[in-house]
């Protein structure tokens, strides 16, 4: 379906440029249409509140996909962690870290020392590098490029940072309680591994959903093929078989053309409207009686009882035209006006003298004129011998039409 009609950034993406850590704040800011500074402040202010800010940030980072920015022409390799608005970036990152430390001390988990700060800084830097590495690798794949050694180097640096950080952390904690060292070490390694590999898991999940989308797309293609096979190929075969019967061939071709047009230009989805009803009716009459019917509809609106009556009258007029018009082409025109719906059915057949038609014959009197009058409308039949017939139907309507161009189809 068309992408162009969708407003840009309807989904939440993490920004792939002008970001500091994971692009979460920038992405949210773009999505919500507010200044990025407020989002960043919001995350910082939420840190003392039981660590909400950190958790939220991490969750957003993990679950929102990275935007593939078409406007950014800079290749992924040239960006550094603190590129762009570097002043704000460093302040934000540092504030995030300090906030986290203060929170942990307030909870009595740690005592702030230089070694601890160093350990945490190293580990955080390592994690940030790794997570962004995964992001950029994803980007590079989408954009079809990227030098592999840069990615490998970054991954190694990230892992090294995390390991050194964890080691320093263990060294600091080690003198507090030697007994818990073993357990603590295991826990920290496991936690470290989880943290380090988390983006990979998240990416796997996202790739699965991408794959599903691709599968749906190929299913749609298969459906189109099936439709063409069932309808068009089938009709072509029938046409080849009935070559001796030109009337039958023309009928088949017209019916198939109509069906295909309806399918291609999508009038099947608003079946309850005047436009669709007129088209459908013309197709039925054409199929039953073999005379080609050209339909033009201007404007559209929903059906009600009176319009249904008008359509029934129009159908009768079409059937008459097809029956008595010697197979000449029939024009059907329907228009939704400000105060009425008018339908015209015109044929190029031999025409007839209205006065010469006995009262008990033809559906004109009862099915067309009478039906219209019973529902508050009126009908007029104009026929000239040798010059065809036109039936004009007018049905007043109460409410204004939906719009002047109600045939609009939403993508």
């Amino acid at each position, binding site marked *: 379906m068309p992408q162009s009609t969708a407003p840009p950034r309807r989904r939440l993406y993490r920004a792939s440029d002008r970001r500091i850590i994971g692009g979460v704040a920038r992405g949210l800011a773009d999505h919500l249409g507010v200044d990025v500074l407020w989002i960043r402040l919001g995350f910082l202010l939420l840190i003392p509140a039981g660590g909400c800010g950190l958790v939220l940030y991490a969750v957003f980072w993990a679950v929102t996909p990275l935007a593939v920015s078409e406007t950014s022409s800079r290749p992924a390799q040239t960006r550094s962690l603190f590129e762009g608005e570097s002043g704000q970036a460093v302040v934000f990152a540092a504030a995030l870290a300090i906030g986290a430390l203060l929170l942990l001390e307030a909870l009595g988990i740690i005592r702030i020392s230089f070694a601890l700060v160093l350990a945490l800084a190293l580990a955080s830097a390592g994690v940030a590098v790794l997570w962004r590495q995964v992001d950029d690798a994803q980007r590079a794949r989408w954009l079809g490029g990227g030098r592999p050694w840069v990615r490998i180097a970054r991954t190694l640096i990230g892992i090294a940072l995390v390991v050194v950080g964890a080691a320093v952390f263990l060294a600091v904690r080690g003198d507090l309680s030697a007994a818990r060292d073993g357990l603590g070490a295991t826990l920290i390694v496991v936690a470290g591994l989880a943290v380090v590999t988390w983006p990979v898991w998240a990416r796997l999940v996202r790739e699965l959903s991408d794959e599903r989308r691709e599968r749906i797309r190929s299913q749609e293609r298969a459906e189109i093929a099936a439709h063409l096979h069932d309808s068009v190929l089938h009709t072509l075969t029938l046409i080849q078989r009935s070559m001796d019967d030109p009337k039958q061939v023309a009928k088949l071709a017209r019916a198939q053309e109509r069906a295909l047009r309806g399918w291609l230009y999508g009038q099947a989805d608003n079946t309850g409207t005047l436009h669709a009803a007129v088209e459908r009716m013309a197709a039925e009459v054409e199929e039953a009686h073999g005379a080609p019917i*050209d339909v*033009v509809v201007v404007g559209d609106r929903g059906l009600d009882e009176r319009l249904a009556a008008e359509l029934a009258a129009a159908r009768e007029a079409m059937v008459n035209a097809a029956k008595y018009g010697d197979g000449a082409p029939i*024009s059907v025109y329907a*228009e939704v006006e400000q105060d009425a719906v008018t339908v015209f059915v015109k044929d190029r057949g031999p025409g007839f003298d209205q006065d010469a038609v006995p009262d008990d014959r033809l559906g004109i009197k009862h099915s067309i004129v009478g039906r219209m009058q019973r529902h508050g409308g009126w009908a007029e039949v104009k026929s000239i011998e040798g010059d065809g017939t036109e039936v004009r139907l007018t049905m007043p309507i109460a409410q204004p039409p939906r*719009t*002047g*161009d109600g045939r609009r189809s939403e993508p």
Partner: protein
Amino acid sequence: MTGLRVVLVDDHRMFRTGVRAELGGGVNIVGEAEDVDSAVAVIGATKPDVVLLDVHLPGGGGRTVLERCATLTDVKFLALSVSDAAEDVIGVIRGGARGYVTKTITGPELVTAIRRVAEGDAVFSPRLAGFVLDAFAATDVPAIDEELDRLTQREREVMRLIARGYTYKEVAKELFISVKTVETHVSAVLRKLQLSNRHELTRWATARRLV
């Protein structure tokens, strides 16, 4: 007026053969083309009176041919297509074609349409007239350019009759005017369709852009 020089542009050879046969001796077909590049070359070399132009062509479509032949002001274009899609129809008209007929048109009708276009008049099929009425529907949207953005009452009447399947002659009879006057009205509508920047017209065309 026989001997009008016509170039036929369509990517289906069978269809070109069919049109050639249908037109018979009514016009003089001086060239054929099957894609945008060959069309531009043939039109430039032969300088025909009228080009019968298919809307869908390999290499950019009929619209591209119109753009690239914009300097040949003496050549008139008549669009001929199976497409019912509004944006195709409006696209070629706004690109400069003097008319639009569907491929179901009969031979004699097509010859008449070619003559009409050659004389500088416009050719509207019922469907095109329907599109015009839809595009210039009377809504509350204020016109930006009064002269271009609205149809006169008379023009609307003419369009409505054409949409109902009336020939120009029948329209003239119905409205008690001359065929020449009908042609004048239709040409005026064509001009509005080509030049109007009516907000409604663009929105309407966009809304119908499917898939």
